[in-house]
């Protein structure tokens, strides 16, 4: 039986549905990310697990005990916020000691635990500082140490890295991953940033309109989006339309007809007429001379923008669909808007989606 078992959770605010029947099971020690755009219900679910939001229907079971209506202070779950929520009048050490004093630990035990937590988040030299005297990343580490100090069963993290700048965010991701491995606590992490989700999670639950629309390991979700929403939300995907002619078993897109790509299944993706496909920008090659088994097409450059590691090209195909693709910097030197490029894509890189529900 799963450690955390959420069943058919529903929560409405007036006519707005925040959670529309969410099921989720999490194993002990797992790192699960709730990923979705704002307003998709991921924070409502986190707050229901924390005990600050009462669901209208459904239940939350932890380790065999129903906690759906238990007070948050009895749950023993750590909670970390985007805004840190450190107690401004207490020092770093006093902040970490707070949950231990509330639990009436004796002084020596508190001192030892605070010392241990400070070492865990590498803030031993900052014990007597006030939160305001720390940087954002340091404050967030204090918040995590405080939430982990009393040995919670689950650590809930509500967009804890969104307020940090990019470099700091990446080092905090590694830090969180390390803390997760060292403590063995179950982490439930909310974010709208997919890269953050990929970098840390064992599994990702993608939220859309109050539901979990897909759940799985990061690579699996990236490689196999199962709906238009997930395909569009993850990784700047190219979504395009194709025509399926059942009579001769061909798909027509980007101005040429080809036989059915391996991932196309007429029963699922559309028996006849218009179907929806997707292809990742990195899977479209430009001017690739070799590889026999590729689908080739011409596209006109509309826009070029530099994204740091590569040049991002926006092109239009001969059937009027817009695509994004990435080429190495040196390659783009001669390319100007209006240029016609010969593009190629491997059939197995093209995915298809069921007609949108």
């Amino acid at each position, binding site marked *: 039986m799963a450690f955390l078992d959420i069943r058919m959770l529903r929560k409405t605010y007036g006519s707005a549905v925040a959670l529309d029947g969410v099921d989720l099971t999490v194993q002990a020690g797992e790192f699960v990310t709730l990923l979705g755009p704002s307003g998709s219900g991921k924070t409502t679910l986190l707050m229901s697990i924390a005990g600050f939001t009462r669901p209208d229907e459904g239940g939350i079971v932890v380790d065999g005990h129903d906690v759906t209506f238990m007070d948050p202070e009895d749950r023993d779950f*750590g909670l970390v916020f985007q805004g840190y929520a450190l107690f401004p009048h207490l020092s770093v050490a006093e902040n970490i000691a707070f949950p231990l004093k509330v639990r009436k630990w004796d002084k020596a035990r508190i001192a030892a635990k605070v010392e241990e937590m400070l070492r865990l988040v590498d803030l031993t030299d900052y014990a007597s500082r006030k939160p305001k005297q720390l940087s954002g990343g340091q404050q967030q580490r204090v918040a995590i140490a405080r939430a982990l100090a009393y040995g919670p069963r689950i650590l*809930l993290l509500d967009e804890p890295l969104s307020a940090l700048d990019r470099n700091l965010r990446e080092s905090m991701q590694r830090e969180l991953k390390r803390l997760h491995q060292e403590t063995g606590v179950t982490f439930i992490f909310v974010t709208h940033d997919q890269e953050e989700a990929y970098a840390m999670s064992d599994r990702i639950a993608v939220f859309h309109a109050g539901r979990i629309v897909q759940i799985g390991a990061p690579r699996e979700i990236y490689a196999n989006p199962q709906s238009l929403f997930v395909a569009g939300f993850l990784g700047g995907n190219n979504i395009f339309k194709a025509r399926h002619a059942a009579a001769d078993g061909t798909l027509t897109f980007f101005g040429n007809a080809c036989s059915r790509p391996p991932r196309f299944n007429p029963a699922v993706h559309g028996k006849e007429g218009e179907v929806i496909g997707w292809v990742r920008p990195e899977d479209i090659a430009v001017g690739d001379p070799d590889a026999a088994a590729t689908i080739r097409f011409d596209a006109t450059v509309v826009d070029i923008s530099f994204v740091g590691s590569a040049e991002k090209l926006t092109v239009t195909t001969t059937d009027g669909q817009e695509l994004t693709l990435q080429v190495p910097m040196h390659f783009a030197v001669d390319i100007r808007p209006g240029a016609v490029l010969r593009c190629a894509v491997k059939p197995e890189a093209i995915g298809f989606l069921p007609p949108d529900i």
Partner: protein
Amino acid sequence: MMPGWILLQRLLPRIAAWLLLAFLFLPILVVIPVSLTDREYLSLPDQSLSLQHFASLLNWRAGWLPSMITSIGIAIASSLLATALAAAFAIGAWVHAGRWPTAMRLILLSPLIVPPIIYAVGMVRLWSRFNLLDTWIGVTLVHMILSMPLAVLAIGASLANLDPRLVQAARSLGARPPIVFAKVILPNILPGVAAGAVFAFITSWDEITVTLFITSRRIVTLPRKIWTSIADSVDPALAAIAAVMLLVTIVGLLIRMLVWDGRTPNRS
């Protein structure tokens, strides 16, 4: 020619500011010479300076001392009640932000908006029905209501700088509401609570309009005593009491400035 013009341009605002300050402050200072008059009516000293009017303040039968005690008692009681209620409301509104707290806030702040005389008429009717006219409880409750707005504003202002998520953070760490209040909220809003209490005390201390309507013989607050003694006589003791109040106010302000300014460097 230019330097003179520039000098004037720079000096003029300063002179204007000092004149305005003098205009505000000098009329207050006039009570000091008047309180030292050697005559039996309100006037500037004639032959010599005299402390007789200060002495008469201490005379119990003259009524100044009892009314001062009454005023202090009512001010302490009403400001404590007002501060406690204002803190309770402000914290509640801070935790549960929404439409109802905003509406409630408007009602609580209404004594600032409604003219006191209108309030007075209403209170006379209400208090006569509850038999609270001319009683300690009646006056204390009215003063409490009148001093709530400033206390709510002062406490609300210090809560505005506090992250409401602190409550959720503390609760998730295992703290029950009483501990959240005592160990998390209160330490962070103490300056606001203290300021609110001082405002509430001052509001009660010099409240006259409503007090005149709801008291008669039993409860005589200091402002009421001043009011009646102006009406029946021009006793220079008035100037003496004004001088004492001025002194107390200045000392209070100095203490406040010293305590607050001494604390700021540690707090940042």
